[in-house]
């Protein structure tokens, strides 16, 4: 358990309720604060309220993850916040989606089905140092 003053805030942008619950549970267990947005359109407003890292799904109602990513990177207020794209689109070894996400400024691209919540936490920690 990390010290309270060091508690990092993770913004989870995810539309699937089951997965929101799961990642929220895990991240809290790992000592993060979690803010959840289930709609791409609302994501930017929420991110502007502050956070240390964004977990971003791609397939969402409203605005898709790529569009959200673009807006984040265009907005200087929030563009510094690291983004991990966490999605079930694409496959491990050959997908353009990963390339696209990285080229848009994502720090990492993780496929949900292939990464356990533990794997995700490891990635977050490695990014946040």
């Amino acid at each position, binding site marked *: 358990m990390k010290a309270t003053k060091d508690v990092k805030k993770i913004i989870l942008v995810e539309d699937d309720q089951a997965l929101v619950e799961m990642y929220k549970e895990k991240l809290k267990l790992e000592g993060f604060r979690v803010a959840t947005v289930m709609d791409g359109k609302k994501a930017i407003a929420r991110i502007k309220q502050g956070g240390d890292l964004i977990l971003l799904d791609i397939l969402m109602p409203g605005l898709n993850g790529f569009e959200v990513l673009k807006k984040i990177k265009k907005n200087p207020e929030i563009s510094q916040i690291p983004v991990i794209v966490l999605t*079930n689109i694409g496959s491990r070894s*050959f997908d353009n989606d990963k390339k696209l996400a990285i080229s848009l400024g994502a720090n990492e691209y993780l496929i949900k089905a292939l990464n356990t919540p533990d794997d995700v936490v490891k990635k977050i920690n490695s990014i946040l140092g």
Partner: protein
Amino acid sequence: MNRCLNCLSENLISIVDKNRVHYKCKNCGSSNARILDSDRQIFSKKINGLTAHVTVAALVKKNDKYLLLNRSNFPFGFALPTGHLEYNETVNKSIARELFEETGLVINHKKLILHETFNDSCKNGGELHEWYLYECSCIGDVKLNNESSEYVWAAKEKIENLDLAGTTKYALSRAKIIDQIDNEDDFKRRPSINRRSNESQKRAKIEQSALEGLPIPLLIFDKRNKMYYSNSNATKLLLTLRKDETNYANLQQMFESLSHRVIESQGDLSANFHFDKDKVLNIIASPLLVDENICGATITLKDVTDQKMHEARDLLAYKSSLALSSHASSSEIIKTLLKQTLDSLNITGCSLMVLEKDILKVIMRYSIYEQKKRKPLELKIGEGAAGWVAEKKTPLAIPNTGDDPSFIGSSKIQEKSLLSVPVLSGKDILGVLNISKKRGLFFSEEEMKIITTVSNRIAIALENQKLYQELYNDKKTLETVLGTSTDGLILINRDLKLVFANAASQKINGLTDDEIKNHHINHFLAKTSKKNTRKFISLVDRAITKKKRVTTNFVSEKGPTKIVRTIFNPIIEKKGYCDTVLIGFNDITKIKLREKMIQKQVAQITSLFKISAISIENSHRFYKQILEKTAEITNSKEADLFLSGDDKTFNNASVEEYCNLIKLTADPNEKSCIINDPKSLLSQKSGSRFSRILAAPINIQKKTVGYLVVNNKKNNYSSHDSKLLSIIAGRVSSKIETDNHIKELKSDQQKISEIINNTGDGILVRNPKGEVTLCNKAWAEMVGFDDLKQYDKRNPGVDDRFEQIKEYAQRNQFKTLHRRIKIKNADGQDLWLQITDSFIHSTSKLEYVISLVRDVTREEELDNQQKEFIYTATHELRTPITAIRGYLSMILNGDAGPVNPKQTLYFKRASQSTDKLVSLVEDLLKVARIEENKVQFEDKAYSAQKLVKEVVSDFKAKATAKQINLDAEIVKDFKLQGDYEKTKQALSNLVDNAIKYTKKGKVEIVAKEKINGLGDIQVIDSGLGITKKEQSFIFNKFYRVFNSETIKAGGTGLGLFIVKNLIEKQGGRVEVESQAGKGSKFTLSLPLDKK
């Protein structure tokens, strides 16, 4: 009477040139002298009863110069409207008209068109002196170029009064004309031309200039016998003579005396004045009469020195020419000449040595009385008189031969005065003429000249002798040739008398040489019809006058046909005269008859050719034309064709009408039959409209199917007609056969087209340009055309990449090409077509492209739906799996609190199954991506060693867990080219399989560089192995080898499919070597780094 206008000599030669007769004067050589011949009397009748001929002259004044135009000055054929002439005097108008027509001037609407170049030709030609002009009358004036008034004169000429003093009269009348020009009426009032007054200043000037132009030296003396005028020629002459003062004074005295005498006597006088030994002048004095008043005398001068000198020679010349012209032999001529020389000169001897040309060898000697042949005597160059003369070629006079030591035989021969003269022909010496006189006597200059003349004559005689011999030889040769010629040849002269006829021509007429020679041609043509004789004579005339070869055929008018080809060949002498015609005869009757026969045959063959040229495309027209031509060729009234079986008949006749006749006589299966008398056969059936019939069977495969029949020829049908008809019948047979073949072909074609049209697959045939040459209904329906004709030939709707496909196939030498394309049909809907293009070549050239087109739209749609479904399904599966897997991992991780060992076991099993599900979904996704062609490949160089090491490291744990030894062997690292991740995926799949299907032992990865530009990565295991049969299927999608072992090992059946696709799409290959139970070796061959 014909006379030369120049010298009035009657000695004329006629020259025919371009249908006109010209006359050349033998005496003076004048070639363009006007001839006064009888046909000109046409004018004499019209001119006031004067017994005069009219010749024409025109005097034109321009720029103060007078130009005398005569007929000869007007070149024939001129016509340029540079001036015109108008008549003032009505009296002479008609005469003028004719005169000017005669002169060549053209009268057109009362205007004479006069070519300006007359003036130039008159000025420059200097021919005026050739012309005599006696009496003139003005007939009108000419305006040239509207510049100044000009005058044209016509002159009448009195033949009777012509004499040697003509020139004087010419000058006079000319002066008169000039006066008249100025003012005709005024002239009459004035007594003489020498009266000078102020008014006539201008006139005098004119007079002078006219007289100046005279080519003859002319002097005019007044009544007091003083010289009044001398023209430029006379002045020039007198100035030369004045150098000898004494003689000149004598000459002047002579002039005065002559002037005095002619004025007194009013008659002409002529005298010779020996100016000195070298010059003799002939002086002609005439009284100068104007209007019959004596007003002086004219004197003309003529240098007759040459004439005088020639006189003595002329005598000899005359006699020798008589001898020459009397066909005497040259030796006679020479003897005559020598004798005449002896007679006319005071000489004692005269002899001639004839030398052989070039070698100075005496071949003949003539003396006056005898002709001796002695031993050949060689003249020594420069020795003796003869030797000297022969060498120097100049005469030599030796006053006394006794004094000359070089003279040969001086001791034997009497001493004498000797003159040796060379006999020369050009530069060649022919002989030496020796003349002797008594010792010491000289030869006078005159004698020398005469002897020279004699030597010239002898030269001519000797030359002639040579020439004669040559001609004689030529003649003999020619006669021999003519005699042996099979063609008849006759020579005929202008008077239509036969000069020569060869043996063949004598044979033709059955006449002997004597009967023919010198007889009129009528004698020769006695057996010829009058018409032909006339034609013959007119052609002789034509050949002579036109000097052109004429060829014609004479056809006998009576008796058996005889055609004689006759050639009239005028014999033209060197000077252009033609007096004789050589006529050749050749009996060409047989040739002509044969020609006719050949022509007839050619006509028939041509007709047959025409028949073969009749197009068989249109049957109706074919039969119609065949029948027309058949009737034409066989000269028949009608031609009919009837064919058994389908009751086809053409033209008028019914089958029965013919059949009865043909059946009666013909063997229908063999040859054509001729019935030249059908009525006799049909005696019981009267009223047959046929007079003659010829029938030829139409045979097809040895069976008679009909007849080609012609009827009613004017005369009997011959076997030749029969042959012709058979040929035509053969043509008809072949037409019928062709028709049958076409029918068969058409039915075959119909069958094929039915098959094509009823096939479900579209068929499209295109030529190399891409134009549709054939297509079927199925194709039309496929692309949405209701009617086959609707489509655009250039753009048949299948694809717009025909050119690329064609090139692609040609480049790769593909004979067939399979492709699937998406197009929009006529309704604008998407259409998927599976096309198989077959490229059909004939001798390496592309002939056409057959495309089999199958509509696979539905198939494609289903396929796409399936792919879409798999993609969506797998993707949708991922979310719940993520949750299951996530929670399981959290539980096992202890995130949800402690788990007892049994629970842990169960959750682990659940987790393992979930992992399998995840990898299955993963594989399905990959396959879906591959099939959608959505996988993108990088093209970068990477290290083979790194790749292998990473894979080994990834699978090390898994291998160890199964107690399998996983090893890598790379002797030397190398670079591969392509997509690292995709290759790693493929290699991983192979290693995964190897571990999966190996119970015990090892899995080895061997990487090595090859020479062929590829690098191999091999995965070798000691596992289950694959049977040969199964090896061909293992790369198929979802294929799994089914046995207890493999089922236990599990798998999706997608791994190798993915490997194959990933490798091949990078340009690589996957191969397998395996034996059941002994392990497998999978080899990935990948392109090496290009650098």
